[in-house]
Structure formats: C-alpha cells, structure tokens
C-alpha cells in the first residue's frame, strides 16, 4: 500500500520532470527539470531494490551528466536570452508519432504475459553485482572501461580550442 503510493508519487515526479525537460523554453530550466527526472528515476531504483544503481544514478547522472549539460548550456548560449520558438516545425507530427508509440508500448506492456518470478533478490545486492561485474561480465566491463577512456580522449580532442 505505502509502496504503491510512493511509486505513484515518484513516477509522477519523474514524468513531470521529463515533460518539463521537453517543454521548458529555457534550456537551463530544461536541465533543471532533467535533474528532477533523474532523481525520480533514482527513487524508482530504490523501489526496485537496486540501491547501488540508485546511488550510481545520482552520482553519474545528477552529479556528472547534468553538470556537464549545464556547463555546455553556459558555454554555448547567451545566457540572458530565451529562445522563441523553442520547438521546430515538425512538433505536431512528432508529438502524434510519439503518442502512438506510447500507446503501442503500453499495449505490449499490458498484453504480454510476463513470466514474473516470485523469487527474492540476493541479500547483498552490491557484492552480487560486484562479483557479476568482475566474474561473468568481466569482458564487457573491461570493454566499457576502455570505451570510457576513448570517449574521454575523444571529447577532449573534439572540444579543444585549436
């Protein structure tokens, strides 16, 4: 009961943040709404019994990605102006298509007979996750770290002033 109330609250917060991202005139305000949405998703992870992901979500998305986006906003725009019109000319068409997609995804989510299991997640999710990352998934893990390094270098090279 209480978790359902919590879910509805967090979900509404998340969706509200997302709508704010899309509809805010100012990109900076968009970014703030994005943070709201990220925090909401973090809450969803807590409800899903994934505390580690919740922490990572905050650390990476709120602490890093959002800050990066805000930096980019400040580096690329004249901060005193708000842009008009902030949507392009295909917003109507795009909106309809997105809505159609939403309906279709909902249909799939409700029609499909998901094989829900009633088993309990492991007691210590963090060690289970750590063992999975360092054991079964060590190769993708290493690839991901190399990927991050490449992205880091690439970002520096691309953004550097020549």
């Amino acid at each position, binding site marked *: 009961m209480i*978790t359902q109330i919590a*879910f509805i609250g967090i979900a509404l917060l*998340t*969706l509200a943040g997302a*709508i704010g*991202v*899309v509809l805010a005139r100012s*990109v900076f305000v*968009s*970014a703030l709404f*994005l943070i709201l*949405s990220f925090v909401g*998703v973090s809450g*969803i992870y807590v409800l*899903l019994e*994934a505390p580690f*992901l919740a922490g990572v*979500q905050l650390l*990476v*998305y709120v602490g890093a*990605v959002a800050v990066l*986006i805000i930096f980019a906003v400040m580096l*690329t725009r004249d901060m005193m102006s708000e*842009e008009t019109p*902030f*949507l*392009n000319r*295909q*917003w109507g068409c*795009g*909106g309809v298509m*997105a809505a159609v*997609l*939403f309906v279709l*995804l*909902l249909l*799939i*989510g*409700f029609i499909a007979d*998901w094989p829900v299991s*009633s088993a*309990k*997640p*492991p007691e210590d999710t963090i060690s*289970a*996750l750590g063992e*999975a*990352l360092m054991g079964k*998934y060590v190769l*993708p893990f290493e690839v*991901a770290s190399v*990927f*991050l390094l490449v*992205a*880091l270098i*690439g*970002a520096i090279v*691309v*953004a550097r*002033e020549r």
Partner: protein
Amino acid sequence: MDIPLSWYLTLAAGLFSIGLFGCLTRRNAIGILMGVELMLNAVNINLVAFGRYITPEAVAGQVFAVFVITLAAAEAAVGLALIISIYRTYDSIDMEDINLLKW
C-alpha cells in the same frame, strides 16, 4: 512486490515517449541530447524492472543498467564536446541552422 510490473513498464514507456518527443522537436542541440538521456533512463528502468521481476536471483538487469549508464556518460561527454565544437564553428547550436548535408 505489491507494485505490478506493468506499472514500471508504463512509466518507462511514458519516459521514453517524452524523451523521443524532445529528441524530435527541440531546436536546441542540448535539448535533443537531454531527450536522449531521458530515453536511456527509460531503458534502464525497463532493464532493472525486468531483472527484478523475471530473474530476481540474477543481477543481469542491473549489470546491463550499469553498462548503459557508462555508455550514457560517454555519450554525453562526446555529444557535448561535439556541440561545443559546432558552436565554435557556426556560432549557433540551433539544429534548424545545421542542415549542410542535404541535396
């Protein structure tokens, strides 16, 4: 477990569609990037929810969510670097101005 799986799927679908809408309609390149981030978050919710509800004893869902987060971080870094580079070249990041690659 008193929250049905479909609720999470609904939330993810909504988040995805909103992010998609942002991607399709924002004029600002950073806005598009934010739409992409929303979509990635929606995907992550799905991954973790499916992992929690269908294979709770394995952590595969969370592992993949970790990889997606990694990817998203890298994508944000490179994407924003590109945007800054574009801004230096065109003095604008309005995607309506950037249509060089056309007929």
